[in-house]
């Protein structure tokens, strides 16, 4: 996978849905209280009732930067009103509770003192901190004692000169990328600097960076939110699928910027393969393990000096180039001991010999199996990359077509749809091969392979049509054929995904590798 893949993402989500599909709205569940309700995404699918959702299709919502700010502001305002604390304090509390408003309010009602303490807030009722000149003041950081020195202290009363405070804050913000948990500079004081005090103390550029960092922690703190990984995209996606669900669902989401990615592992769309298999597959492909596999399948070691030897023909009488050791390729024994049966190893059927042969044969079969899947996977990956060129050519073709055939802009859009269908389908096909590599054979895999074959044939047929010269493309008969094939491809893809997703959700696939059940990248599965 490489960055070229982000190209795949331009496919709009309408293209890969059956006509009876609903759109990707969250089903009215807007208060993010997912933490305490397991499997919400399944429930919410049921709730939609009249709208039938495809099994591979999950609920999600895209938020633009403005939405994200508004969500935070709304929560802050709400807590500010309910608990009668300042907005800055509400924000610090919310961050401390990872934006779980319900738990914050509950805990605060139960034991306000401990909650404030743990969150880094003072309990004094003093007014908001401000800059002050204190007679006889000596700053503990820079030892400055000039009269008229501007000083600042949080509610804890640890007072330092404004200059030192600025140095300290800029070190924290720019140097350490810290924002949500910047503490008072005093040793052992865990009071948190609030946004208002910070704005008072530092310059504009620092404030901007500070708020940007705060903004980031909001999305990162919430398990149901993730940034869109596309370059320069500032949107975040909300999806209720949790880490523990990743062995049963492949949560593919599509950002407003067009990027399609997996909410579970943030990699590009890898349906139908679950995150864990994707991770295993990518690792396998990246590893040298296959080189080792080849070596073990095709070579033996010299019994004396252990040099690796590939036998490329000739008889069983081997003479090691390095150490001149003479041995039998078959039994690996000394050639001199072969006695009368030169050129024919009669020790061939010995138990150890049989075992050695079996091990080698198994290794060879497993290598061939891997290469079967890998070649097809890599082929689709490469074709997808070539699709990038096709896509740019398509635009030119469309303009050309408009000129030559007198068709309108809207009439040539079918080429665009065809190109997009090709890309999405190739992306899916690619991952079907990685998926199939890990499948243990049974009746289900046969259905799967049929689906895979149907999609592959449809894609190749469309790809062939798509590359016809412009004069032929103008023919209305071919246009209809391309449109038919495009929608056929999309349908085949949906059928394949539907089938795999349903079996995955119901745990019916058998894999030939151990599945740990927890998803992609490590870390705690629930953070409370």
């Amino acid at each position, binding site marked *: 996978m490489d960055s070229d893949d982000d190209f795949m993402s331009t496919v709009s989500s309408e293209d890969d849905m059956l006509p009876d599909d609903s759109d990707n709205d969250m089903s009215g569940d807007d208060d993010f209280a997912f933490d305490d309700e397991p499997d919400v995404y399944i429930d919410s699918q049921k709730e939609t009732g009249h709208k039938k959702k495809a099994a591979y299709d999950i609920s999600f919502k895209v938020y633009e930067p403005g939405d994200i700010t508004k969500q935070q502001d709304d929560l802050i305002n709400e807590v500010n009103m309910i608990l009668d604390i300042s907005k800055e304090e509400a924000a610090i509390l919310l961050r401390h509770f990872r934006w779980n408003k319900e738990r914050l309010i509950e805990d605060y009602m139960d034991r306000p003192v401990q909650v404030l303490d743990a969150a880094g807030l003072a309990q004094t009722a003093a007014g908001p901190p401000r800059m002050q000149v204190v007679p006889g003041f000596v700053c503990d950081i820079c030892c*400055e004692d000039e009269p008229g020195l501007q000083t600042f202290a949080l509610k804890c009363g640890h007072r330092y000169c404004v200059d030192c405070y600025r*140095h300290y804050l800029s070190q924290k913000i720019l140097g350490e990328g810290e924002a949500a948990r910047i503490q008072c500079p005093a*040793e052992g004081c865990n009071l948190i600097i609030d946004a208002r005090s910070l704005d008072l103390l530092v310059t504009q550029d620092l404030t901007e960076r500070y708020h940007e960092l705060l903004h980031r922690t909001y999305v990162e703190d919430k398990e149901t939110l993730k940034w869109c990984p596309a370059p320069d995209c500032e949107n975040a996606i909300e999806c209720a699928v949790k880490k523990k669900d990743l062995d049963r669902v492949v949560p593919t989401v599509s950002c407003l910027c067009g990027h399609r990615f997996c909410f579970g592992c943030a990699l590009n769309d890898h349906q139908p393969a679950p995150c864990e298999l994707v991770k295993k597959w990518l690792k396998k492909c990246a590893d040298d393990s296959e080189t080792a596999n080849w070596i073990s399948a095709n070579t033996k070691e010299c019994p004396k000096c252990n040099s690796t030897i590939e036998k490329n023909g000739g008889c069983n009488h081997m003479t090691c180039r390095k150490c001149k050791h003479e041995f039998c390729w078959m039994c690996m024994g000394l050639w001199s001991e072969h006695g009368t049966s030169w050129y024919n190893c009669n020790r061939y059927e010995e138990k150890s010999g049989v075992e050695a042969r079996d091990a080698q044969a198994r290794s060879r079969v497993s290598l061939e199996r891997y290469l079967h899947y890998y070649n097809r996977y890599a082929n689709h990956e490469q074709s997808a990359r070539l699709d990038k060129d096709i896509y740019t050519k398509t635009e030119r073709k469309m303009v050309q077509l408009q000129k030559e055939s007198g068709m309108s802009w809207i009439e040539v859009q079918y080429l665009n749809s065809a190109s997009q269908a090709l890309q999405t389908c190739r992306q899916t096909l690619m991952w079907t091969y990685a998926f199939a590599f890990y499948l243990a054979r049974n009746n289900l895999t046969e259905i799967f392979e049929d689906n895979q074959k149907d999609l592959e044939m449809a894609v190749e047929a469309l790809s062939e049509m798509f590359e016809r010269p412009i004069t032929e493309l103008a023919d209305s008969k071919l246009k209809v054929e391309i449109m038919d094939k495009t929608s056929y491809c999309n349908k085949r893809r949906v059928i394949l995904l539907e089938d795999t997703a349903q079996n995955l959700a119901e745990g019916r696939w058998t894999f030939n590798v151990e599945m740990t059940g927890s998803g992609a990248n490590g870390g705690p599965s629930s953070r409370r």
Partner: protein
Amino acid sequence: MAGHFAAKRLSKELSKIRSSLPPGIELVSADNFEEWLLDIRVLDNNPLYQNETYRLKFRFASSYPIEPPEVVFVKLPDRPIPIHPHIYSNGIICLDLLGQQGWSPVQNVESVCMSLQSMLTGNSKNERPPGDEEFVRGNRLRPKDIEFYYHDNDV
């Protein structure tokens, strides 16, 4: 390379250190505002450190005291590296207050020395940190670039 900010603070610290220091701490050299050497001794009769003096090297960046100084033990013929589960045999010290997270700008050379003194005083384990040998052999990083994992705070 101490900047104006650091220089001012260090000159104040130095004049205070020259006038008085707690027992067991001695200034060896402070010729500039980049590197100071101090000797420390453990005052109680902890058998691990009895009759020994240890040499500390402080290095200050221009951002001192906003950022912590780099503090290591230095080995000399008469100045060994104290044995301690948080002190590597090359003199590098794993102490949270010397890291960015644990450091407070209110700390100073004197307070760091005192913290190290008490870190030694409170220790009863005659051992190096786990993995000392590999660390000392392989480490090319400056102390501030090492991500220490402060697994316990009671030693």
